[in-house]
């Protein structure tokens, strides 16, 4: 989900996967996106990545180690919980994050 001020209206599953894997940084040629992660070991994080990328947390770690140690990028900014993700979304219209469905409020737009 994104801030209600975001220009992102919808995203495909592949686009969501590529955004969080650092492969897609600009949408429609101009809109920058800044993905936000939940804490390592959190249930939200494990479920999100398994659904959209098919990767377990160990595979995700292996994936990012290839990116980090070739100087090509870093994983998304990591936040502690749903409340922090929602606060960050309100502050940054480029941000995109995921939370437990019940945690979402009117300040954010649910994409999926």
């Amino acid at each position, binding site marked *: 989900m994104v801030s209600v001020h975001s220009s992102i209206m919808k995203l495909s599953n592949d686009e969501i996967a590529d955004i969080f894997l650092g492969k897609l940084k*600009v949408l429609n040629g101009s809109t920058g996106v800044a993905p936000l992660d939940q804490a390592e070991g959190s249930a939200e994080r494990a479920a999100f990545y398994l659904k959209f990328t098919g990767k*377990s947390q160990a595979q995700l*770690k292996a994936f990012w180690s*290839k990116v*980090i*140690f*070739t*100087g090509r990028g*870093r994983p998304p*900014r990591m936040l502690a919980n749903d409340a922090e993700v929602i606060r960050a979304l309100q502050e940054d219209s480029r941000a995109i994050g995921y939370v437990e469905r019940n945690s979402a409020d009117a300040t954010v737009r649910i994409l999926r």
Partner: protein
Amino acid sequence: MTEHCARTGRGTYYPVMNATLLKTIGAVLVLGFVQPVVRAAEAGDDILAFDAFGTLGVVHSSEGRADFTRNTLVPSGAGASQDWSPKVDSVLAGQVSARFTRQLSAVLQVVSEQRDDDSYRPRIEWANIKYEITPDLTVAAGRIVSPILMLTDTRRISFAHPWIRPPQEVYELYPVTNNDGVNLRWRVRLGGTTHLMDLAYGSSDTHYSRNGSAGAARARKQFLLRSTLERGALSFSVGYSPAELTLPAFGPLFDAFRQFGAPGEAIAERYSAEHRSTRYIGAGVNYDPGRWFAMGEWAQVKIKGVLGGHWGWYASTGLRIGSITPYMIWAQTRPSRQRSEPGLDLDTLPPESVPVAAALNAQLNAALANVPDQTTLSAGVRWDFARSLCLKLQYDHVDLASGNAGTLTNFQSGFQSGGKLNVLGVSVSFVL
């Protein structure tokens, strides 16, 4: 945060830098914070990050009269030198990356692993400054590991791969991997397909020590073009890399041939290892939907002169069952063609020159035949037993072609070429 970073950055990395370019990069990396810290911090990005990876592993080989080694640059490994050798797979690396502005960043990676002189003296693997012209077009200058093959630039990060080490039949075809120069990376997205294009140009010196012969492989005018297509779980990649290679260690051999007049000069001209053009091509495919994976790669090297050409391929598949990943690899490397050279015609030489000429002919033919010809069948398992930690166990059955010593080195008396050997490796890898 600024104070902490600057202190750690200086303390850890200054002592190992030597080359001017690398020094400059280091200085920019460390001194660069002072100004841009606030700007980058506002953007919510990390200014500075420290990361590390490593592997501690031991390897045993059933061939006790030669060594199974980590690559074709080092003098010793498991077998004749050590029953269980930590040299083959062990590595420790630390990296500092800095982002000065949204566009400008730098990375410095120092690696400690067995070197050509058998020491573990740390070496700079990556040191470059990168500028993002757009988020999808970046240019980097400094030291880069050229992505000649699919895994060349990540081959040391055992944690990133299912196997204990990338198949040597393909990854040791051409051991020159560093590139001091410039690199351009361009990403284009069409529908759900991402096209990555890498262009690089530069030079590098790679030191080796094998079977008592030591020296450097000097690659110049090293050009690289790599194109990768990614769509979901599927990726396909092709690479092309021409360069000009010099191995000064062969100089004395061909100088000696030149003493024999026109026929000797013709041989020296044909086989010399000075400024010889090399060409490297490769193609690979990887399908990894998560629950299982399959990948394969093929590569070919052609080097004018004594080194000749060879090719290799591998195919691998594995299954992910929870934290356990059993896998298999089938790999082969072969010379492009069997080569021999009649050399100097001994019948036309004065009797006193015959022994020297015969020795030179023999030395040249030994060098021509010294191209690995082997097939390896491997089976292994990876266990992700904790976050950021994995344990691997791998068994390799290496079948050397008749009369060939494969990628082995440090031959002891009684070694029989063309045999078979079994190699067992156990390792623990981490990323931080």
